[in-house]
């Protein structure tokens, strides 16, 4: 796991052209990608579901007549009805408003973590791969060390002590432990992009290293970053809910899907609406995000032959990068 050999990279993940993409063509590529994404049935459903969940999380509280912390003294533990769409909990709070609020918090945290950790991974990984030498060694050492530390443990140690600072701290902490594997993949892709003619040409023209990284290297790993970022959102949401479930994440009186599941798990048999709306929202969201990630992988991969047997003809070594990407998902599955 701490292998520092050059990892073979799946060339299909690196943009094919030997010239850097021009902005005008990117517009076309964006359209093309979107079209290909919607042609993938799973990803199309995923996008629709995500849009609906966002609408639920951000518009739901505006539509609902109840605030998430408001108590209706006339309805304790009521099943879903016309007044309380998802029913009420034991102290008369509206489950619809609570689930929407929890979803909102989880989505915000997930999105922010995905953006920040992908940015950190892109910059550190590209720098490590491009500069090599001691920059590489330092970055990879941090990557390896943070990978040995189970992030859940460290966040659990720090988080309860600084809960006054609010959920933004949680974003910082999850980000801090979320960038390493992506950085490893970006590094190995950079090693391969670095040797291409247009990067050499830029270097011989006297363009500075940072400019080369931002103008030539990163655009060529952008496909991977977009795919990875999508899956990171799901990973971060699962991580956040896990932390919140154990009381190490979002703190009361604020709610997240994790705290809602924790509060209501014991009532799941007697009053199922308390448990299954929150749990269902979480799982449906993660499934949709993963479907979009898969769809993007197919749409952005120029050699993609979804559903055809040609895939078998790839060389075996190229699996390494795919498995590195897979390792990201492993952590998603375990929820931290």
């Amino acid at each position, binding site marked *: 796991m701490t292998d520092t050999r050059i990892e073979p990279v799946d060339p299909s993940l690196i943009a094919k052209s030997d010239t850097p993409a021009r902005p005008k063509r990117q517009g076309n590529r964006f359209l093309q990608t979107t079209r290909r994404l919607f042609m993938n049935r799973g990803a199309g459903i995923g996008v629709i579901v995500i849009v609906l969940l966002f609408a639920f999380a951000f518009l739901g509280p505006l539509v609902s007549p109840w605030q998430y912390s408001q108590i209706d003294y006339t309805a304790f533990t009521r099943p879903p009805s016309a007044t309380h769409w998802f029913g009420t909990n034991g102290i008369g709070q509206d489950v619809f408003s609570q689930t929407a609020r929890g979803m909102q918090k989880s989505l915000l945290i997930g999105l922010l973590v995905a953006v920040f950790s992908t940015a950190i991974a892109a910059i550190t990984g590209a720098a490590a791969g491009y500069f090599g030498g001691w920059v590489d060694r330092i970055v990879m050492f941090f990557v390896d060390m943070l990978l*040995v530390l189970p992030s859940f443990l460290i966040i659990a140690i720090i988080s309860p002590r600084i809960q006054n600072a609010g959920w933004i701290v949680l974003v910082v902490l999850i980000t801090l432990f979320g960038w390493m*594997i992506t950085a490893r993949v970006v590094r190995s892709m950079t090693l391969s992009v670095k040797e291409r003619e247009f990067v050499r040409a830029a270097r011989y023209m006297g363009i500075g290293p940072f400019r080369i990284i931002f103008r030539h290297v990163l655009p060529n790993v952008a496909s991977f970053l977009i795919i990875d970022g999508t899956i990171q959102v799901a990973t971060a949401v699962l991580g956040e*809910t896990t932390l919140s479930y154990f009381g190490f994440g979002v703190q009361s009186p604020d709610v997240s899907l994790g705290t809602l599941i924790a509060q209501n798990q014991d009532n799941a048999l007697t009053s199922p609406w308390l448990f299954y709306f929150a*749990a269902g929202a979480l799982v449906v969201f*993660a499934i949709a995000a993963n479907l979009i990630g898969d769809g993007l992988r197919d749409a952005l991969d120029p050699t993609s032959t979804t*559903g055809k047997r040609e895939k078998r003809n790839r060389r075996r070594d190229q699996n390494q990068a795919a498995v590195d990407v*897979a390792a990201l998902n492993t952590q998603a599955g*375990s929820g931290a």
Partner: protein
Amino acid sequence: MVASMIRFLARRFVYYVVLVFLATSLTYFLASATFSPRSVYAQRNPAPSAQVIDAKLDDIGVNDKTPVVIRYGHWLDGVVHGDLGQTIQDRSVNDQFFPRLGVSLRLLVVGSIAGIVLGVLVGVWNAIRQYKISDRVSAAISIVLFSTPVFLTAVILKISATKLNQDAGSQLINFTGEATPGLDGSAWTLLVDRGAHLLLPTISIALGLIAIYSRYQRATMLDVLGSDFLRTARAKGLTRGRATFKHGLRTALIPMTTLFAYGFLGILTGATLTEQIFAWNGLGSWFIDAVNGNDVNVVTAYTLFAAVVVLISGFLADVATAALDPRVRRA
């Protein structure tokens, strides 16, 4: 060839040991900086005097009036001599560590082996029968499992078991704790009892692993199935099954070893959470209680355990890679 392989593994081993040392030290400093052991005693009723608290904290080695570097030095000295220090209640960490280690390892080992073996088998089966119904159903099931965090799987299993027990009117599935307290009987009865308690926690851990590993095993296996060397193996007269398993599976497992090594961190976290949910007296639930109880030494002991487990799994993955892939041995 063997010598170079040993050199390769020795170099990796030294690297892992340095990482474990740094990771554990970092946790010690983090926990020392954020925990407040003093509050544990100051909140007692009646509150002990300041001197008594200081003496007690000095005894345990967590007095915040001593500079953290000196405390760390004492702690490190103890660890080097095989003593993990005192809990916040001034009991030996070692005394509780080893019984709990047994409990945790039971879950970890059974859960991860079940997950990895079944995951690989399902993956190979799906690859051989690509685009058949079984493959599509597996894909659908695994994306659902994959999107469910371990804690939710565990909670849902627990709820289902409760329902089942209610409907049956008797305790069909035991899921609280790692053994029935106060159960007497032959060694066999005790073993069966522990096995029954192991059921749900193991399933919680294994389900997610099967979902992930089967998908990637399927992908690596598909790449191998179309390769030239497999055609050669068939051409020289091997049966399809023999060629697939002897030449195909072996090659397809190489990239998976990296995944197993990375994945172990996730398995460990999953086991920590599962222990807490099923009220097992393992190291994981001890850790969670220790975080809530401001117990620096227990938290660090657990991180040491976690880092060593990750180290061992990383090392085993390297050994497996070296054993499966002759090119690594020659490097």
